[in-house]
Structure formats: C-alpha cells, structure tokens
C-alpha cells in the first residue's frame, strides 16, 4: 500500500493527491507517468506525474474523475492509501536546449503542462503559458503557473474569468509576436490537434503529450499505439511525448472512445452504489 499524505480538491472533477512512493520519486522526471491502482479489484490508471520530491519520497498526481476508478481515487483523502503505484514510466520530456517556449495547457492538461513549465523555467528558459479552461470555476494551478512563467494567459470558453477565447486564438497572436523554439501542448486531443494546426504554418516544433488507454504502461499490451509519421508507436515506452505535427490525432481520438460506453456505465453504477450507501446510512 502507498500512503496518501496530502489531498486537495481543485474543482468538482479535479483533485490532487500526494503519495509516498520513494522509488518512483527518486527517478521521476517531467513528462513521465505512473500507473495507479486504487484497490485489489481496481484497474491500472495511467496518470502523469505532476510533481515529485526525491528527498521526501513523494509523488503528486492530479486527475479528473471521468470513470469509476478515477471517482474512487477522488474519494480518497490524506491518511488513506492506494494499492499500487508503479513508475516512473515513459520517456522524460526532452527540454534541454529550449530557450523560448510556449506551454499550452487545456483543462486537466495544465496539471501536466505545469511540471514541464516549471522544469524549463528552472533551466533558465523564457516560458510563456497559455492555459485554457471551460469556465472560471474550473481554473486551478493559476498561481503556480504564474510563478514559473514570464507571461501567463488564462482563458475560458465562456469568458467567465474575463478572458474569453480558445487557447489557439491566444497562441496564434503569440506566434505572431514571438519566435518560439518550441510549443508544448498538453490537453484534450482535439485541443492538441488544433494547436498543431495553428503552429504548423509558423513551422514551430510542437511537442504533444499523448494519454491513450493503456493496461500495463510498460510496453506490453500495445493498447496505447499511436500513429506518428506513419509509424506505429507505443505511447507508454516511445512517448508519451511526440512531435505533434506527425501524430494522427483522428485515429487517437477514435481509439480513446473504445471503452467510453463501459466507462459511463461504471461511473453510473458507482454513483448509484454511493447513493445506496447514503440511503442505507
């Protein structure tokens, strides 16, 4: 069992947990992920490492409750424990040599964009961050992102934070003004697809972080296959970072729907079971 030492809820769907996992913390680098299993019957969930500290042996994950397993994870608090956590998995992000970078995060993707921005900022790079959320009430990590960037723009789909727009609109304006060495985009597949389409005409290298369905996370199941430049890659061992201009996003979006029906049913069952418990009490 791996003990949870800190828990913080960012919004009704997004939560942050800090877990004691010394072996993982010792080696974790930005861009890597862990597989988490909540309990003995649980599935293995891939979650990007949002932060880690080798000295205290702690690893932080930030996740969105989309199915039964993540909802169960979301119900845990400090003092609870998860059955399993394994990692760090995947290839660390290649951030060396980047002088001027625009990091684009969408929704939960900000949780993954943040450690990359933090690492780049720490390495002395010029970092601009564009963070997009659906609505002001869902914004998280704003102060943290501000602290590791030279310019932070937070926009919302509904304009409820006073800045209405899509990350791609803001990115386009930024690309007009600034000559970036790279754009790092992390968020929903559709957002990353359009970020890549936006950067393409400017020929700015664009790195995306893929988060496909996986079972083991170590190269064994092949479920996470992604077509990159016409070649089949396994996101878990060849990625999760890829050259966004080469990724077949349409295929990736289709493959991400494989278990959607089961996911929704399991979440529904989970909510029903929770309600039953409430009624029983």
């Amino acid at each position: 069992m791996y003990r949870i030492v800190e828990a913080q809820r960012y919004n009704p769907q997004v939560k942050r947990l800090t877990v004691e996992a010394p072996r993982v913390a010792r080696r974790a680098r930005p861009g890597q992920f862990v597989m988490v299993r909540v309990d003995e019957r649980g599935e293995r969930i891939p979650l990007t490492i949002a932060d880690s500290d080798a000295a205290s042996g702690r690893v932080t994950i930030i996740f969105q409750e989309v199915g039964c397993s993540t909802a169960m994870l979301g119900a845990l608090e400090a003092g609870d424990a998860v059955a399993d956590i394994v990692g760090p998995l995947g290839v660390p992000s290649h951030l060396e040599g980047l002088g001027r970078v625009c990091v684009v995060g969408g929704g939960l993707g900000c949780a993954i964009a943040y450690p990359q921005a933090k690492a780049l900022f720490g390495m002395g790079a010029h970092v601009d961050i564009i963070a997009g959320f659906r609505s002001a009430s869902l914004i998280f990590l704003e102060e943290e992102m501000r602290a590791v960037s030279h310019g932070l723009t937070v926009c919302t789909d509904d304009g409820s934070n006073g800045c209405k727009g899509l990350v791609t609109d803001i990115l386009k304006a930024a690309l007009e003004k600034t000559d970036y060495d790279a754009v790092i985009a992390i968020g929903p597949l559709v957002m990353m697809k359009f970020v890549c389409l936006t950067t393409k005409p400017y020929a700015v290298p664009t790195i995306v972080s893929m988060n496909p369905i996986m079972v083991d996370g170590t190269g064994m199941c092949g479920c996470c296959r992604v077509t990159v430049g016409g070649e089949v890659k396994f996101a878990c061992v060849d990625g999760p970072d890829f050259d966004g201009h080469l990724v077949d996003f349409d295929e990736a979006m289709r493959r991400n729907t494989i278990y959607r029906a089961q996911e929704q049913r399991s979440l529904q069952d989970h909510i029903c079971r929770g309600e039953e418990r409430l009624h029983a009490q």
Partner: protein
Amino acid sequence: MLNKSTTKTPMPEQEPALRARNFEEVAFGYTQAQAKREAERCLRCKNKPCVSGCPVGVDIPAFVGALAEGDTAAAADVIRRANALPAVCGRVCPQETQCEQLCVRGRNGEPVAIGRLERYTADWAMEYGEDETPAAPNGVRAAVVGSGPAGLTCAGALARLGYAVTVFEAFHKPGGVLVYGIPEFRLPKAIVAREIAQLEARGVVIETNCVVGRTVTVDELLAEGYRAVFVGSGAGLPTFMGIPGENLNGVYSANEFLTRVNLMRAFEKGAQTPIQPVRRVAVVGGGNVAMDAARCALRLGAESVSIVYRRGEQEMPARAEEIHHAREEGIAFRLLVNPVSLIGDEQGWVREMVCVEMELSEPDESGRRRPVPKEGSRVTLPVDAVVMAIGSSPNPLIRQTTPDLAANRWGCLVADEATGRTAKRGVYAGGDAVTGAATVILAMGAGQAAARAIHEDITDGRL
C-alpha cells in the same frame, strides 16, 4: 504390478459445452487410485530416456515409481528437488514433445501420462505437504528481474543455497506470464499463488511495482549490494502484422486481450478493468497464446471464434491438448489463411478481415514448410474483434538502460545458453528474454542453470 494398458488413464474434465462458458479449470486431475494405476504403466527403464527430455531434469522414473508404490510424499520430494513449480508444469508443459515423447511405452500405444502424474503429485503436496524452511543464510544478496517461470526458478534455487534473494516484478502481482498470459481455466491463479507462497516460505522476497529499467536500473541494483542479477524479464513486447486497419477499435494484441482477462480479471463481476463485449472473434496465430485467447473469447460470451493460421494443423506450435480442447469447445480453425487487411465501419470499429489463402512450399529455417499466398485468392471473415497472437519479443527497457548488455537483432539478450552468463560481470539472463517467446519449462531450465552458474561464480570468487 505393470499396467499393460496401451492408453493413458483418462483424466476427468469438464464437458466441452459447459466449460466453454466458464473460467473454471478444464481438467479435474487424477484421484489417487487413477494416479497409481497410471504410474503402474511405467517400465522404470534403467537408462531413463524420459529424463533427458525434461529441461529441468526431474527424475521421472523415481517419482512415478513412488506413486506406483502409493508414496505420494516421496514422489513430491523427488520432483521438488528439480522443479520449483511442479503444479504449473504438470498443467502447461508440452510433455508430448519432451519427456513423454521419449517414453518407451509410447512406441506401442500412448506414453505414460507423466504430466498428469506430476500435476497429481504437486497438487497433493500443496494440500498435504510441508513448506520448505529457509536454508541457512550465506550472506550473499542476489536480485532477480521478473517473477515469471525463469525468475521464480532462479530465485527458488538460489534461496535453497542460502542466498538472500529479492525478485523485482513490474506488475502489481507476481507470476509473470503465469498470471497475465495463461488463463485461469488452464492454470488457476490460486495454484500460481500457492507455488509463489512456497518460494516465499523458502525466504524469497518479492518486490512488486518495480520496473527494472525505469524504477531502478540493473547497475543500481549491483550498486545496492546485489552481487548477482538474473534477468528473466520475458518476451512481453507484442508483435503486430503491420497490415492496414490494425489500429481499428476492436483489434487487440494477445497480450492486451489476455492481460485484461487474466491479470485484471475483466471476466469477473466487480473487476474494474473493462473488456469489450465480443461477438465474432478472429484470433490470428497457431500457438498456445492463440488457443488461450480464442478460448477466453468464447468464455466471454462470443458467438463464434476462429483461429486464423497461415500454415496447417501439423505446423501449429500449440500443445496438442490445447488444439484438441479448443476444437472440442467449438473454436473454428481457418487454416492456410493469412490476413492482409482489416476493414472498419464509419465509427472505426473493425468489421471484416480480408485474407488470402496460403499453400505450403519447401521447409524454412525453422523446419516448418513455408506458407506462400495463392495468387488471386481472397477470403473474408465478418468480425467485431481481432486478436493478434503472432508472437512477442523481449521488452527493450532493460537493454536500453544497461549499456554493456548485448542484444541480438531480435532484441533478445545475448547470454550463454548453458549458464546464463552475459558479457556484463555479475549479470545473468535466461528464459524468453534470451530465447524469444518459448515455453514455461525452457525458461525454468534457464533459470535453474543461471542459479547454478551464479553459485559457481560466487563460490569460485569470480564475483
């Protein structure tokens, strides 16, 4: 008294129609009376041809002889001396190409059912035998990477010599292919857990959730004070055919399909790992893994399941018993047929498999006749799930993170076959990580050989 029957004493098993819809074990195993009767078929040959067919060298006539005398405890002792996982081997070894193939009784009728007798003995020992106690410690630490058949065997053998052995397992549960690959109905996971518990009783420590090559490297293990590291990380990297449509939804590697079902227990109510409901399934391949995937699909409720194999039945690498069981359960065999593309619907789900017919020409380097496509032929199969069971190769993580470990062009680690020694001092390797996907028992043989070499090298001061 010699039992002159020319056929094996039958082993009771579940009716095909019934078992095709459940995950319980197919065969029930012998009773003591059946085991004794079968053991009495053994001629106790002086030159023991059967033993030379056993990769771990179990003294077969000795244990079968003890069974014939009704002394199961003595039989269990004989097996344990050579085999760390007898309840597993009794179930999954390809006996027909090993010990039983060399049995003299097989020249006129069926050979002695050595596998079934091993299973009987091991199951008896689990129930009534005593766990081995830890050996006197020799103060030397050894690390084993992977808790599959090779790793567990190596760990067990080293522990018996007094080594403090830690086994590092990437998954949350130990057993390797025995738990993620081989299905419950062929090898119940409770049996694997018991075999592992016996190793733990011998002093072996298992650390799960540790991916060597990511969580820790081989060099770090050596630096942590492990004098020897045995790499038995298996062949876990799935192979795809590289045909159009292979990334459609509903197309799985056998690893994914079997891991969801076996390790993650997607077939059980309450398990959270999902598996797509399947109706018409095609499994590509002719080995044990293909049979396992096909039979799992049937048990998940599929209406029709086909094995699609590019050669003929004679060339199939699967155990004879698995092919027989699969056929009994209603799996269709589409032989001499090879997929060339997969076609999907508008939502991107696989709907049709397009194949060509094949014919066999002259034998290739593996000794099997090489299949070649019949020009102009075309066969289509309606499908909603496809499982690719065409082999796997070693995972690259260890060779990528251990610079002085050599690998061949198939990604297999280079190690001496008889000793497991690699070019890197203190590092040994064996099993599928070295040979590519092979059998449980060959991996066990390699694990045992490496344990012997490690002990020699430590004793002689080479490490």
